[in-house]
């Protein structure tokens, strides 16, 4: 079992060219993507911010750059990664330092995804090494770019199965001056999701909408300039009156509340399988009761469900009639596939794409199938 630690993009290419067996691709190793066994290639040595233009809202960094280095450089200029990537260390019981390449390779997005888009929506360009050792690029470092096929989106969320991402260019946004969260107590799931979708349907630019049944609380966040947040928080309270009185928490209190939701801290036991479902928001309460999660959390106004099930359970049969998809985030691989199985035609297309980029099947073999 070798761990390769390339320092440059050409090292990556050489390692891939020379390998004759599968390679696990590891960024910070905090997301539980790669299961143990076999040779690995670690991207940590490809580190550093290459270019940051606060006035253009763009940054270019090597894939192995620690997320905290990126976030600290951004916050010095009053900017941030808008899609709010989660920290999955506590949930998965991992140590290590997440990398920016890992965030994009796994398309990790948090609560603000519902307002601004996913990680993949902010990725402007990639450089990567495919399974044949070709050094390739797609996209660029500018915000609007339709030159050629969008391999950037294809690579984002491909979990390293099409190539080892070596460099990413992405769009960032200013940190809002302030934030506030409306909290409504005591709603059942159906009413809670109803309140959340009602908030999302208002013109008051909600930036996150979640419901935690374990705490019996429903949360709606707004962000922006001071006066505007005050105005919208009053408007929203009136708009949501039929769901009950809302208390409002501000700034740091609101921030810490959302970092807990982002990192999904609702699961008390360490043994259950944890599933992540993307669904139609209004269908969420019925989906939850059909599947029978023993603990769960709604984010994205119901569109994202985090749920716990006993080891080896499969939520997909119950999910099928509602549409959407389920990915197991924590739990051992057994007979239940981790990623959502796809329809025959889509699976065939995906497999063919994969075999073009990785004809020898050496990159994260066995993942996403």
């Amino acid at each position, binding site marked *: 079992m070798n761990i390769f630690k390339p320092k440059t993009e050409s090292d990556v290419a050489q390692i891939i060219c020379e390998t004759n067996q599968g390679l696990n691709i590891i960024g910070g190793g905090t997301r539980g993507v790669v299961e143990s066994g076999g040779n690995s290639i670690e991207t940590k040595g490809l580190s550093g911010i290459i270019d940051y*233009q606060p006035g253009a809202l763009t940054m270019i960094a090597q894939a192995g750059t620690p997320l905290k280095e990126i976030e600290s450089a951004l916050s010095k200029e009053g900017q941030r990664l808008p899609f709010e990537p989660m920290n999955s260390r506590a949930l998965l019981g991992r140590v290590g330092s997440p990398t920016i390449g890992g965030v994009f390779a796994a*398309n990790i997005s948090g609560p603000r995804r519902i307002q601004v888009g996913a990680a993949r929506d902010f990725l402007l360009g990639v450089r990567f090494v495919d399974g044949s050792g070709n050094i390739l690029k797609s996209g660029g470092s500018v915000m*609007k770019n339709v030159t*050629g096929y969008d391999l950037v989106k294809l690579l984002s969320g491909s979990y390293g199965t099409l190539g080892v991402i070596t460099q990413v260019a992405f769009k960032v946004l200013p940190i809002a001056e302030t934030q506030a969260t409306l909290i409504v107590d005591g709603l059942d799931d159906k009413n809670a999701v109803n309140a959340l*979708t009602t908030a999302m349907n208002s*013109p008051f630019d909600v930036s996150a909408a979640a419901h935690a049944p374990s705490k019996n609380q429903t949360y709606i966040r707004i962000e922006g300039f001071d006066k505007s947040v005050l105005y919208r928080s009053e408007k929203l309270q009136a708009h949501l009156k039929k769901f009950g009185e809302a208390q409002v928490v501000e700034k740091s209190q609101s921030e810490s509340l959302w970092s807990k939701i982002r990192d999904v801290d609702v699961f008390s036991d360490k043994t259950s399988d944890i599933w992540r479902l993307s669904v139609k928001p209004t269908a969420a309460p019925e989906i939850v009761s059909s599947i029978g999660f023993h603990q769960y959390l709604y984010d994205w106004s119901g569109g994202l469900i985090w749920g716990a099930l006993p080891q080896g359970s499969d939520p997909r049969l119950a999910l099928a009639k509602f549409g959407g998809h389920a990915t197991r985030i924590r739990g051992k691989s057994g007979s239940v596939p981790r990623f959502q199985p796809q329809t025959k035609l889509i699976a065939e297309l995906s497999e063919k794409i994969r075999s073009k980029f990785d004809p020898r099947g050496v990159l994260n073999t066995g993942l996403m199938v």
Partner: protein
Amino acid sequence: MEMPTPSQNVLNRKPELVKRLLSVLPRDAVIDHEAETKAYECDALSAYRCPPLAAVLPRTTEEISAILKICNEMQVPVVPRGSGTSLSGGALPTADSVILGVARMNAVLETNYPDRYIKVQSGRTNLSVTGAVEVDGFFYAPDPSSQLACAIAGNIAMNSGGAHCLKYGVTSNNLLGVKFVTMQGDIIEIGGPYLDAEGLDLLGLICGSEGQLGIVTEATLRILPKPEGALPVLIGFDKNETAGACVADIVKAGVLPVAIEFMDSPCIKATEAFAGAGYPLCEALLIIEVEGSKAEIDEQLEKIITIARKHDPVELREAKDEDEANRIWLGRKSAFGAMGQLNDYMCLDGTIPVTQLPYVLRRMNELSEEFGLKVGNVFHAGDGNLHPLILYDANKPGDLQTCEAFGAEILKLCVEVGGCLTGEHGVGIEKRDLMHVQFEPVDLEAQMQIKDVFDPNWLMNPAKVFPLSSSADRRNASSAMG
């Protein structure tokens, strides 16, 4: 602009093709008389024309599947067409191709406000998507200038943007799912009314693939509640540099306007002469629009104006109501028409890092002197998406070629400063042969192998996007079979 020689074999088999198409389509859906196919000879890049072998106007996904099966079997190239508003020749036919137009498929299939989506057939026009939901206070955000006419199918093919994408993103950021037919006639559904479809991001791949991977027949689109209001401010500067610096400062200050539009002096002059919007005749003009309630708009405009004042603007005009807002937008919206009054024009679409704006505009004016053609600029400054308009005389021999050579130099300049050839119009035929400026052969090969997967015989819109020399082997392999 060179196009491949049509296959004589395909031309000879027109009667057989028409007969087979009529076996799966009603008579009125097949257009094969030469007088009528002429209507499909070009899109909005009208300098290039070629009537197709035939055009088909299906009404259902199943009809499209049947058409594609026939064309695939007979090895006849298919050119998809939305409303034919492409500025890059995306819907330009060849003489041996069938135009597949989706214009008759324009129904709204489902509207769902709580889950904020609308499902439409892809021939529906962009503006009429908003039209279907605005009475209930919603809108569809991507707003290309051609939105009155352009179809969602074309928006998806080109990943269209618009003036407001600084805040709301482009088509791919607002597309949740598609029904899609491959060249083999397979009907596939990808994504749906939930976020981030599973598996490899085929949705992201199809969006912006310029009709080369298949035909999108239905789309599930994100709709958003309309903001309470919006107002613009107009700011004039005596230097492009200053206007560029002002844009960067506004962005850095944390204000995120929905639009930041930029006009340079040739464009301001033309627009004033044409529309009389009362613009100051200065070097550079910004129109910045913000959204929200009255109080929120005031707060944001105040921040923008404070920043702008530090850059000594020669003019600063705040819209107080809708009437004044319309006056400010009047000039911007008539800019293309105004330039068209002066002469024929070609509209380019490169993107640059915002920080390179002053250098690029200066260099563009130097090139303008070298080539002896005037150029005006009106564009989306917030995201660096330039729209240089080069004026030329279509009736003057050689002028179009000079204009194209000038355009190519501008696009090379965009790439040289770290930008790209096209921000929202697509490559089509227009920028096809410049792709090697931005990409290495190996990068183009990686893209072309995607097309190999979806369309192994290279029949779907084959002569677009990639330099003809790069795609020649693949295209010739298929026409040898045909």
